[in-house]
């Protein structure tokens, strides 16, 4: 028992990390004109929390995720992972992008193995790739090339490619947007199960208020571009959650109101 627990702790040393986004503002230059995208965004995420970000299209959600990943530096403000300033990408923060962006020249298996290979630990950790593929139900397609996959399958491969790294912060940019509703619901509960088992901190961007409420501890609602935090909503409900839960339905109406929709439905 102890040995097994120890082995578990060694292969998965990372529980979630805390994430602090402090007064972050960002802007892009488009044809010389400045386009403000984030305006004074502050979000503080506890280790192991599941946070959903909701906001209108084009408001700056993906931009914020790129800053968290360390792919871009903000124009103002700071981002911290466990007190350490985020300056560059690190495999402890893995992103599942809005497009699956699989490498077309690599088979499914090799795509999932990408992170381990880049970190030089693939040789001793090959089973992790197989496990991740099993997890998303694509073990049979390990030798297929990305052009042979459907959109939803490609998105699942992208998810496996992220999970195989045992991230401390998992960053999901509408990862389920392309899936049919059935697969979507299955994947949602898979993500919750994974998150509960491994304890990573999760940052999920979604368009779907219901998805946010079924999955997250906290839901942040953003304004139109430039994005500001409009609301920080705690969802105190045990898992597994039910879509029909009146408490969630109430929150959903509240969120849709914040997003500018009449709550008549």
């Amino acid at each position, binding site marked *: 028992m102890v040995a097994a627990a120890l082995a578990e702790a060694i292969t998965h040393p990372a529980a979630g990390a805390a994430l602090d986004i402090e007064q972050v503002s960002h802007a892009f230059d488009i044809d010389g004109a400045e386009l403000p995208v984030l305006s004074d965004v502050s979000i503080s995420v506890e280790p192991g929390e599941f946070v959903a970000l909701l906001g209108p299209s084009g408001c700056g959600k993906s931009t914020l995720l790129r800053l968290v*990943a360390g792919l871009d530096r903000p124009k103002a403000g700071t981002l911290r992972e466990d007190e350490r300033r985020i300056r560059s*990408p690190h*495999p402890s923060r*893995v*992103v599942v992008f809005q497009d699956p*962006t699989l*490498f077309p020249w*690599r088979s499914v298996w090799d795509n999932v193995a990408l*992170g381990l290979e880049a970190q030089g630990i693939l040789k001793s950790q090959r089973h992790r790739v197989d496990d991740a593929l099993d997890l998303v139900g694509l073990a049979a397609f390990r030798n297929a090339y990305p052009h042979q996959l459907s959109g939803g399958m490609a998105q699942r491969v992208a998810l496996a490619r992220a999970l195989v790294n045992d991230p401390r912060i998992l960053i999901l940019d509408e990862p389920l947007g392309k899936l049919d509703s059935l697969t979507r619901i299955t994947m949602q509960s898979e993500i919750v199960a994974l998150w509960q088992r491994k304890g990573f901190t999760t940052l999920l961007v979604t368009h779907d208020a219901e998805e946010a409420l079924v999955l997250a501890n906290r839901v942040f609602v953003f304004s139109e571009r430039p994005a500001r935090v409009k609301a920080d909503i705690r969802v105190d409900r045990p898992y597994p959650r039910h879509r029909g839960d009146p408490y969630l339905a109430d929150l959903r109406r509240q969120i849709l109101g914040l997003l500018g929709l009449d709550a008549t439905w």
Partner: protein
Amino acid sequence: MSTYSLSDGLASGAPRLTRAPLLAGWLKESGAGVAASAIWIAFGLSCLWWEDVGDWSRTRSLGIAAFIIAAVALFGTVGADYLGSAGRGLRQRAPWLVALGAFLTLWEVATAKFAWLPLPFFPPPQAIIEVYTDDLPKLLDSVFASVRLQLGGYLIGAAVGFLTGVSIGWSRAVGYWVHPVLRFIGPLPATAWLPIAFFTFPSSWSASTFLIALATGFPVTVLTWSGVASVSNAYYDVARTLGAKSSFLVLKVAIPAALPHVFVGLFMGLGSSFAVLVVAEMIGVKAGLGWYLQWAQGWAAYANMYAALIVMSLLCSGAITLLFAIRDRLLVWQKGTVKW
């Protein structure tokens, strides 16, 4: 089909009931083969029937060879079902055999038999066969010399071009220095360097190698470069968030993503290096197929020229086939690539 035996059922897959579809099916499958056989018999007869207007020693052998090919065409296509993939291949190519036989017959009659085409300039098929049998050692020497020169120059040019292209595409500093040089020198046809190269290099062989490498290197460099430059940033983002260092980004992201472009460059380089090879051999190197052509022209040995041209075209086509085969191996992940 009144009796049914086991061997019947095994030999002909589906049972055929009436005679008309049977005949139609047979014609469809073997008709072209039979036609090919007939036309090759005609070719053989055209060789043997009339007297040659000139003095060629291989007319009889050619006629007999034509009959043999006719026999192979006939039995090969009629009995294709027993010959596996070879039989199927022969059936597929039978229409081409018909066309080729017709062309050869016409050629034979127009040159060796009635001299409708002016003679020394248009040698008959048997004259070219004669070259292959009687001048074989010299021709083989020339082939080896050409292949060696071409291979050496091409490999050097391709390697240097690839490395240069990757460096320019990847590093701004390298691009700053190399790009202007590339723009200045690259578009110049490599053959323009011929006069200078032949007296600055220690041997005409090294000069030609350099020129072939130059002709190969330019397109390979430019296309590798554009391939590396056009790799989507999204791929780099993915790799970086997964912990990739820059060596990984170059070797495992930029280069594989650029590979389809690289092969276009290699293909273009192959074409332009062939041109340089032939010119270099004609002018400076006293060996190789280009030189053989030149030599044959000097002696007004037109049959030798055609013979060398045919070999050259087979070699060039073979080289391109090989390149495409390598590409198809490396780029299996691409869909819808052109078959050569």
